[in-house]
């Protein structure tokens, strides 16, 4: 590993929802610059909530998240948008704009750098060139002019990756990026994600529920169980015993 330079510092993060459910119960960990951190855990363990707190899509209840020196908690309006330009996000359901072309979706990643021109969807030549280049690196050069709803799931997720990379983010959050894809498309998408993050020197936090993918791609793994960090270590440390504890120990309680 490269030098251990902390990019994101999460301390005693708590998040409760209005109904009273406590999704995160005091989570603390650091994310190092340049690493690919995988968060594993069963459904409902709080993986999505954790990622959504990092770019302020969910407001946290207490604690602190510092991204490259900026405290996320309490950010609003322009400052929050500024933070988000540094933090790309990829979703389980792709969330690309289906009725727009692939190239338009990639260019959406640049919106924060435009004002009214972004409202009208007018982008500079340089940005268009860049979008073509990134889409080509994701092997989507034949799809650039197609409408997004004509693509397969795996292609849609690659468009979403292109959109995030267009932001030139410092960190990329991927929330179950392959949960709605078949195994073939899944490893392909994760492969592209891994490769492009390395090439662009982007720190990535990826939540996954498939252990083998986590072992394949992670520099480091964090395990969440019911809103608490129950595992932290390298992929080689995630042995059967650790997995057992992460996924199967809730049943004993019931």
């Amino acid at each position, binding site marked *: 590993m490269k030098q251990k330079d902390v990019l994101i510092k999460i301390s005693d993060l708590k998040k409760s929802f209005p109904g009273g459910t406590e999704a995160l119960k005091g989570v603390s960990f650091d994310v190092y610059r340049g690493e690919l951190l995988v968060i594993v855990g069963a459904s409902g363990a709080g993986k999505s909530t954790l990622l959504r707190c990092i770019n302020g899509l969910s407001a946290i209840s207490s604690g602190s998240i510092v991204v490259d020196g900026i405290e996320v908690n309490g950010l609003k309006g322009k400052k929050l948008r500024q933070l*988000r*330009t540094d933090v790309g996000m990829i979703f389980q359901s792709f*969330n690309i*704009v289906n*009725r727009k072309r692939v190239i338009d979706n990639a260019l*959406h990643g640049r919106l924060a750098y435009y004002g009214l021109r972004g409202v009208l969807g007018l982008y500079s030549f340089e940005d268009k060139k860049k979008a073509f280049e990134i889409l080509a690196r994701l092997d989507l050069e034949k799809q650039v002019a197609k409408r997004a709803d004509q693509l397969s799931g795996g292609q849609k997720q690659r468009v979403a990756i292109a959109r995030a990379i267009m*932001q030139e983010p410092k960190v990329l959050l991927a929330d179950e990026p392959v949960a709605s894809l078949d195994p073939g498309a899944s490893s392909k998408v994760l492969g592209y994600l891994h490769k492009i993050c390395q090439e662009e020197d982007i720190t990535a936090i990826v939540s996954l529920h498939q252990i083998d993918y986590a072992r394949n791609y992670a520099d480091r793994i964090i395990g969440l169980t019911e809103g608490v960090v129950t595992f932290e270590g390298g992929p080689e440390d995630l042995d059967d015993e650790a997995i057992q504890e992460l996924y199967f120990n809730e049943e004993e309680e019931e």
Partner: protein
Amino acid sequence: MDRNMENNLAQLKKSRRPGQLRLLFAIILVIVAVIWSWAGTGFSIPAIMRGVPRIYNFIIDDLIPPRFDSWQKFLNPTLQTLYMAYVGAIFAIILSLGLGIISANNLISNRLIVYLGRGISSFLRAVPAVAWAVILVAAVGLGPFAGTIAIALGGAGMLGKTYADSLEEIDMGQVEALKAVGASWFQVLTQAVLPQFLPDFFTWSFYRFDLNIRSAAVVGLVGAGGLGFSLDTAIRLFQFREATMGILWIFGLILIVEFITAKSRDKILEGL
């Protein structure tokens, strides 16, 4: 095991009961409402029976055949009706776009603004176009101007609500993704909300234009210009055959406009 199943069945039975009670209550309510309104309107089948020959006589003696030679009289009013419907639709669409957006609870986080938007739409909708026309004819005088505003206000009530409902149905994942790239509210609106909303927008707007043709014909009856005004004039002068000609014009206009809007709507939706 069997006793278990019996228990389950009993539970199922119990769970259904409230639904059945509610259904019974609803049926009784409908029956009461029918009887009440029957009495209230003085609806009587013998009166219909007695009326049929009179309607028949009126149609045969007074309405038919239409005075085809009077067709030119209705040419300008027809065009006027068309203009009223069209301009009324444009104004209604512009007004409703604003109303629809502020009434959509997934786009506006301030509850108060959403209630305000919904309230304005409800109010506009609650007043029929003819009632707006009566008020506006008194305010700005006879003619198509009053009719156009009346149609616009009536239409905005409906479109404001349908736009808002359509906007609330969009996939918020796409909206959230653009928020996550740091896009501004207006950027999210045009780049993620609008693309999803456009098909519904065109469908409802064209439908409103169809309805406006009917409204435009009707508001004329209270003096707000167009075919209705000419029709009313003819009836007041007992020129019933001329009136029949006017009704034929309205009929033709509606058919032609519906045909054209259906075609253009399909073309536009195809291209979206």
